[in-house]
């Protein structure tokens, strides 16, 4: 079995019907985004009782969690040297890079004074007691590291090919020279950045879980735990590979490439292990805190908690332990989607559902503008991803020998037999 594939820009039509629909959604979202920047936060349903809404719970908290494919895959392929997964590193890296970029874009919409977002880098404003300060610093540095990690892909694409049109032609040599310098330095230093990326991810993924510990009297006991940072880290690690698999499968369908089922399937073998650790830790925590009664009290919280862990962790473990399901396109897609759903739901639960302010008159529900911005940013992220993989060598295109043609029936999940 030879998986030695070479990443190349994907050749495809950009504006398919799906892409046009996404562009429409993204356009509406951008209108809502700019509207918010002009008229302020008044268009969101957040208030003095619920200061945080879906822009924090989904755009920021869930966004960071779902970008975990970047550091988990980098650790697997570059630190633990599992060479066969190399083809998955670049797509995961791109997802993380875009994911964090959009986390920042989403965060700006939520900040009342977004033009002050750079304040935490000023030493005069450093505030070491603040969990949010650590999250902010780690995300800032990690985002920089991600862009540095992506540079070699840019170099690979353009080195020796810089040919700007007439008025800018004078810059060709300078750009070419800087690409060569970047190439030479990055080759030596890239390991430093890869490890830094993993350490930074450990730090801020867990610290996102520390955030709500400062509100002990407002948090529901099912989610309020002093080891919440550990849960956030474990669940981020657990959702990393499912994200990579989910994206790879969707990309292969969208670009009509043969899905790398064998690689993805063996990657998926590890998911029950990580999910199991996460579930086990949750179980021990609920037991030690004596919080089990809250699981059976019939409240909305108990219900969503059961869905979060039942559909989002237990079910995918069962599915992925089955060889036939794990080796099928549909099985892999469903199981990885469930894990993603579970972790996303966890973040929403921790930041919104579990949060019970003292004097709230009615529960928080997002406004139409909040929803438009959130969905619009997701659509825009997918469109940018699509553009980048068509320009840069990110996705490894399998050698087409014509023997394993994929059934390309529209609208149904198809199983690939080899």
């Amino acid at each position, binding site marked *: 079995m030879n998986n*030695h594939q070479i990443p190349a820009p994907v050749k495809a039509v950009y504006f398919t019907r799906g892409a046009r629909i996404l562009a429409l959604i993204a356009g509406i979202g951008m209108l809502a985004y700019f509207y918010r920047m*002009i008229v*302020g*936060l*008044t268009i969101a349903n957040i*208030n*003095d*009782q619920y*200061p*945080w809404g879906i822009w924090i719970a989904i755009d920021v908290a869930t966004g960071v969690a779902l970008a975990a494919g970047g550091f988990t895959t980098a*650790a697997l392929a*570059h*630190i*633990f*040297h599992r*060479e066969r997964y190399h083809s998955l590193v670049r797509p995961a890296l791109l997802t993380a890079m875009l994911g964090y970029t959009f986390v920042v874009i989403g965060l700006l919409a*939520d*900040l*009342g*004074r*977004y033009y*002050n*977002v750079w*304040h*935490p880098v000023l030493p005069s*404003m*450093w*505030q*070491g*007691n*603040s*969990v*949010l*300060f*650590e999250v*902010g610093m780690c995300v800032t540095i990690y985002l920089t590291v991600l862009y540095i990690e992506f540079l070699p892909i840019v170099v690979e694409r353009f080195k020796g090919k810089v040919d700007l049109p007439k008025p800018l032609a004078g810059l060709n040599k300078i750009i070419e020279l800087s690409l060569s310098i970047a190439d030479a330095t990055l080759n030596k230093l890239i*390991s430093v950045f890869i*490890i830094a990326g*993993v*350490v930074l991810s*450990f*730090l801020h993924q*867990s*610290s996102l879980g*520390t*955030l709500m*510990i*400062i*509100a*002990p*009297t*407002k948090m529901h*006991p099912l989610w*309020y735990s*002093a080891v919440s*940072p550990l849960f956030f880290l474990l669940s981020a690690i657990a959702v990393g590979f499912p994200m990579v698999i989910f994206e790879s499968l969707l990309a292969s369908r969208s670009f009509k490439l043969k899905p790398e089922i064998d690689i993805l399937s063996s990657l998926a073998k590890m998911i029950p292990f990580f999910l199991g650790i996460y579930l086990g830790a949750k179980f021990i925590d609920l037991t030690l*805190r004596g919080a089990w009664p809250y699981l059976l009290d019939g409240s909305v919280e108990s219900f969503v908690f059961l869905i979060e862990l039942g559909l989002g962790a237990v079910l995918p473990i069962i599915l992925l332990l089955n060889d036939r399901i794990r080796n099928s396109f549909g099985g892999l897609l469903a199981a990885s989607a469930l894990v993603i759903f579970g972790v996303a739901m966890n973040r929403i639960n921790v930041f919104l559902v579990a*949060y019970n302010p*003292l*004097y709230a008159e009615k529960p928080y529900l997002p406004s139409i503008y909040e929803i438009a911005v959130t969905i619009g940013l997701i659509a825009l992220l997918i469109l940018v991803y699509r553009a980048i993989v068509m320009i840069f060598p990110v996705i490894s295109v399998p050698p087409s020998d014509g023997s394993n043609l994929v059934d390309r029936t529209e609208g149904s999940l198809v199983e690939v037999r080899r």
Partner: protein
Amino acid sequence: MGLDRRDFFKIVTAGSASMLAGEVKAGANGGNHRFSDNFGVLVDTAICIGCRKCEWGCEQANSLAFRDKSEYEDKSVFENQRRPVPDKYTVVNTFEKPLDPANPYYLKVQCMHCNHPACVSACIVGALEKKTEGPVTYDPWKCMGCRYCMVACPFQVPAYEYAEPLTPQVRKCGFCYDKLKDGKKPGCVEACPNEALTFGKRGDLLELAHNRIIQNPEKYVSHVYGEYEAGGTSWMYLAGVEFEKTELPVIGSEPIPEITESIQHGIFKAFVPPLALYGLLALAMHTFREKQAEKGDNHE
């Protein structure tokens, strides 16, 4: 149910905090005397007549509104429980007097100016600050508007100017810090006509409060709210009924930011844990690389 859950929180919070801190501080209040010299206010709800002059005084002192004093005689505002809002740092609400429902108790609400403020611990840029004199102040120029302080506040006091498009601020009582520095009393205390509000050093106020309880046991419950709550607050309350029956939240004696700060400082102790993780990963990378080389596997 509400009470059960709150009790549960107390246990959980105290338990996990001590677990993480590695030691249980005796009552957590042992260190509270170091706040004795802080300025504070004692609110005696048994004396307060609900005239709302404190609201007027606050709005004058902070240039929030310039209404005529007579407008504050409107009793209809007591029909709903009010909360501090951006242009009202303090509000007076009612709660029931069991033996005389027609003449309820009154309770003034404002920032408590905690000894260990959760908002200050949460603030990402240090826009909120605990002054040595006691007040918790806010600097809008540092603020980036993340509103984590509002998530953190156990008394749910800070309000936000959501309607302000470009320069929204977190709004809350600042204990008239500028007046305090000039040796003056805060606006609300100056306006109070019958000494329901007593301004002074926190230590003196506690003594006064306990004396009132001892001298009038029929008038007060034996509980000074704010003496221990959330590790102690600058503003404290006396009441004729259990505080559970008021709108003031039931809060344990642990400082609210204790757990998060233990976690943060544990993780970043001299940067050892992150650097150790870095070293470990570097070692793993090196080891696995050599293994691969021995195997003679095809590299990229």
